């Protein structure tokens, strides 16, 4: 129960942080980090996948309402959670994670290389969906790709930073 409450508070903080601080700071046209994805990297993998999907959808809608995006965050979160469920089922062994005292992927359990691939690939899927819906035209494909790459790196660094803050 406390774990759920903790997740809920982190979700609210990340949503407000995204809508009122990160989106308000001018970082240029290419860099648009979305560190709220951290929530899905600290959510236990063994939770009900339907619950995570629906919860993630409402979390996305909440950010959309705060940020005035109307559905873009919600759609990209649904897409990334669907992809993450697929990746978790194929590449993560929950029992071995549990033996190491964790419920989600960390650097300690899987090593830097795997962790980076895992987090970056999920961030990339999210950002690609997000920018596709945001740009909404094929003529801007390369701009969209560049935004995805630059923003994914920014998001990855912010996630590492926030994760270390939460841990401490």
């Amino acid at each position, binding site marked *: 129960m406390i774990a759920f409450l903790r997740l809920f508070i982190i979700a609210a903080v990340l949503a407000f942080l995204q809508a009122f601080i990160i989106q308000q700071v001018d970082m240029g046209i290419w860099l648009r980090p979305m560190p709220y994805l951290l929530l899905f990297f600290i959510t236990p993998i063994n939770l009900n*996948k*339907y619950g995570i*999907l*629906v919860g993630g*959808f409402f979390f*996305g*809608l909440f950010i*959309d309402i705060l940020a005035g*995006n*109307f*559905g*873009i965050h*919600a*759609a990209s979160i*649904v*897409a990334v*959670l*669907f992809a993450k*469920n697929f990746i978790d089922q194929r590449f993560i062994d929950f029992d071995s994670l549990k033996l190491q005292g964790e419920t989600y992927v960390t650097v300690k359990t899987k090593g830097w290389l795997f962790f980076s691939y895992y987090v970056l690939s999920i961030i990339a899927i999210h950002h690609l969906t997000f920018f596709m*819906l945001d740009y*909404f*035209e094929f003529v801007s494909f390369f701009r969209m790709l560049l935004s995805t790459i630059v923003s994914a790196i920014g998001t990855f660094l912010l996630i590492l930073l926030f994760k270390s803050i939460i841990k401490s």
Partner: protein
Amino acid sequence: MFIVLQWLKRNSYPLLALFLFGFAVNQIMRFQIYQHSYYYNSSISFARTIDQWRNNVSSYLNLKNENEGLRQENLRLRSQLNINNIAVNTFKDTTYFDSISKSLNNYKVAYTYIRANIVRNTVSSRNNYFIIDQGKNQGVLEGMAVISPTGIVGIIINTSENFSRGMSVLNSKFEITPYIPKIELRQGVIGWSGMDYTVADLKEVNRTEQLKNGMEVVTSNYSSIFPPNIPIGTIKEVSQKNNSNFHQVTIKLSTDFSRLQTVYCIKNNYHLEIDSLSNPIIDEVK
């Protein structure tokens, strides 16, 4: 049913994800101004393309009817030319009125034709009207006759700069005196009963006249609006009431009012002159 439920159960997670994704995308289309306008413009453009394809197909499929109309019109024009040839020989020294012999010295041009397209037309009201894409600027005037390649259509009642409104044959106020060439009869009045847009009624024809089914009915040369010999239709049914001195005649109209496209407005260039001569006669009769 069981198989369907099993399939739904097996794929419930992707289906739920798809549903939520679709809902979110729907929100984007509805509330994001840029995405909404992009989606809206793309859909409009797509719909227009589909409409154009459909119009092309329907025009192609309608070619048969159009060809049939043109064939009938050609036939009528050709038969008029034959009549004119005779007229040149017979009435050489008289003034003969004709619409298509402008080049011949002994002829006067009685009728002027203006081609138009129907832009709106009704057939289901008691009083039906049509609108054409030619108006005052193109020479269309009130009182001009309107015909289609297959028969009479109506009379122009209002004109604007570039459009005109006409009273259709399918109107309770429309009446015309017909001519039945086979028995050389100029009698009765044709009007529309309001029941069926393919037929009209011919009233006040004496029961002694030998009317038969299939007889052709055309415009009479007594009309100062319509040129003579324009098809009105063919006799479909002839009946008599015991206590009446007149036939009850149903006429199958030669114009298909549900498929009107191209029409001709006809101006009688001697309309006013004929009317000025008719008025003293009426005064004398009075």
